[in-house]
């Protein structure tokens, strides 16, 4: 068994205890958490710093405000409802179209206004929030994903997760929804993780349920070699996430919109570790390099340049 641990160590794998004890706890002061735990706050913050975020149509803060829901939905064809304090992609309802009084979900099923109403009231009472605290529900722009992912995403929006350590993007992956993940982009819900080369912005290889795959399980399209457009700008935006929040160990979630380009969806103070599996490499050596070099990196540009020079695969 100890030889197994040694093997993980040799690969430079960062484990859950190490993430919490050596990175999250020391570099993400508790007082900064509210900045990223509440998506409304995050949105304001990132917007003010000049980052691109999906437009917000409205916020529901209390059950009585739900009276305005029908009027709001009247004018919208597609939108996303999400809890402000949700975690792990829970409680997100995506509406891609409208048919009469019913709304279309990405899996081609319908929901009524009443069901949307119920969903929001569940969010408000804290069903999806950490610790069951009362929550807010955000209604925002539904991303029209870039056709570049057409062949490799199934019923949902693929997103890009970048781990940023002290402002330097250290590792990135593309998360592809599958039939099994129900259009969600979370790996533990069955989405596919795909490594991205930090230097070129090209996808490398994919891992699904801990096995290597060369193609998407639903569309059977090859996955590697897809170039993410505007990669350097994406890295810059993620690096800005650090400048804006001050969180030393940060996960930045970005989606590519076909009209609006990269949009920052979410910042995460406790990003998961599956990115290592998707990239088939451990985080440890990259984190160590940043640890040694970050004093000399003063702007986003320098940080991104450093990342591209050092973390290519």
């Amino acid at each position: 068994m100890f030889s197994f641990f040694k093997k993980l160590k040799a690969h430079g794998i960062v484990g859950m205890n190490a993430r919490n004890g050596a990175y999250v706890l020391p570099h993400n002061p508790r007082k900064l958490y509210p900045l990223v735990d509440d998506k409304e706050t995050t949105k304001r913050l990132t917007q003010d710093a000049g980052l691109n975020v999906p437009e917000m149509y409205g916020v529901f803060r209390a059950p009585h405000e739900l009276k305005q829901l029908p009027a709001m939905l009247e004018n919208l064809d597609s939108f996303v409802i999400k809890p402000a304090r949700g975690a792990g992609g829970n409680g997100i309802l995506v509406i891609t179209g409208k048919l009469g009084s019913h709304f279309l979900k990405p899996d081609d099923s319908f929901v009524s206004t009443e069901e949307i109403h119920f969903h929001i009231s569940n969010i408000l009472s804290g069903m999806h929030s950490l610790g069951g605290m009362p929550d807010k529900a955000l209604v925002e722009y539904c991303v029209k994903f870039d056709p570049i992912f057409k062949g490799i995403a199934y019923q949902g929006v693929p997103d890009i997760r970048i781990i940023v350590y002290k402002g330097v993007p250290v590792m990135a992956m593309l998360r592809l929804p599958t039939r099994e993940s129900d259009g969600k982009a979370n790996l533990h819900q069955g989405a596919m993780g795909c490594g991205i080369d930090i230097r070129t912005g090209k996808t490398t290889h994919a891992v699904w349920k801990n096995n290597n795959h060369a193609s998407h399980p639903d569309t059977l399209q090859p996955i590697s070699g897809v170039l993410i457009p505007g990669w350097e700008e994406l890295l810059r935006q993620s690096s800005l996430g650090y400048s804006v929040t001050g969180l030393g160990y940060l996960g930045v979630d970005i989606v590519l919109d076909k009209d609006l380009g990269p949009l920052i969806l979410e910042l995460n103070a406790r990003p998961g570790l599956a990115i290592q599996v998707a990239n088939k490499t451990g985080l440890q050596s990259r984190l160590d390099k940043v640890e040694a070099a970050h004093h000399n990196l003063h702007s986003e540009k320098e940080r991104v340049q450093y990342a591209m020079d050092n973390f290519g695969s």
Partner: protein
Amino acid sequence: MNKLQLKLLVGILLAIGLGVFSYKVFVLGFPLVPAEKTSAWNVEAHVAFDGKDSPVKVVLQTLNRVSGFAVTDEFFIGAGYGRQRVSQKITDEKLTNEAYDQNSVVIWSKRLADGKQDLIYSAVLRPESSDEFPTWSPPQDIPELRDPQFAEAEGVAANALISRIGKESADMESFVPLLMQELQNPKKNSNAAYLLRNAKNSRGIVNVAVRLLHLAGIPAQSVHGITLGTSSDARISHWLELYQDGAWHMFDVAKGVFSTPVKFVPWWRGDAPLAEITGGKDLQVSLSVVPDAIDAMKNVVDRIETTHPTFFDYSLFSLPVQAQATYRVILLIPIGAILLVFLRNVIGFSTFGTFMPVLIALSFRETQLLWGVGMFSVVIMLGLGVRLYLEHLKLLLVPRLACVLITVVLLMAGISVVCFKLGIPRGVSVSLFPMVILSMTIERISVMWDEMGAGKAIQQAVASMAVAVLAYLVMTNSYVEHLFFVFPELFLVLLALTVLLGRYTGYRLLDLVRFRTFLRG
């Protein structure tokens, strides 16, 4: 700097904990393992009431005529109270039986008592033959029948009842259970209902039964007592002593059968209550029984008391018995918590809630393991069913949670009633389950069910249950209990280990599974 502080803290904790521990073991000679047999029992009655700023008198039955046991080390604690120990005639509603003439009571009195009052009676029961556990044997004297003193209308009802049961039965063995059945379900029979109109509790029913038995020509006597076993909330159980054909027969009122009492200690006889009060209100008596752990360490304690007179003044052994029994349970909680830290941070188990498995494990203590796991699963499954149905009604979250809670309470009450009817006494103890925790668990399982699918939800539920079972096994281990009760300083050692675990940044065992792709090739 921070690391130095950590090392220093851990070092100090380890030094103190292990230091005191080894001093007690090697110098004072405390036993490391619990004694194999517990021969003596600490019994305690805690009387609490509110004074009304007036003279007050409390009468409490004390242990008396306990065959097979010697009552020693009796203590009566009541600050500012006058106390006398008197013998009292047993009166079953004016019906006196000379064969068991006397109860022994303590009378506490005070001229002025105001506010909350506490009185404690404690005694040690030692078996007269300490070789093996004694069973109780009833007295051999021949009793006499007495006039049950029924009023006219009562007499008619009593005669009607007895003659009817007499016709349905063949002998005493069939007569008594039938009679008790009638009295315990008086709704079916108006005669029984009339006779029981003033009997408020099970003691009242037993006393009516005794008078009816005398009327039927069977010399009988009620006996009230406790069953020996570790409990901070012992309950009085009622038995009948019946004399026929030159021998005594014991009848278990709760079970409705003739049997020989095991581990039963009679406290008093007759129709008097355990405690009576004049001049006060809200009288409450709680009883506790604990095996005498000090007895197992008697030699050590005796020796240390002469050499270090104050040593035990500040140990857990100086607390009242009831508090000791409570601490025996409370001290187990940190052990469960530390086990959980290990399972989560070193093994990598994920469970519902942080310390919920520990609480579930605690409730397993009340029900025993298999019953606990069975009932836990049944309640969770039925609760989940209800929760899934409520989902259709589109209720808001908090009302829905309240609905689940109400259902859980009803379910558990139902399970208790059914189990009781089927004669399964364990089913009744389900009522001690922490219901709120169960409903929260149901809610969390169902939310996870919605979001991550049934597989993940069931997996987590089973993991929580497994951790709870593991915690139960550790927490009910008699060696563990003995060690931490006799050597509470070991908690400092555990604290040190927990602090170290808190800084453990190495891999978890289940990281091997997560990152198994890196282990290939």
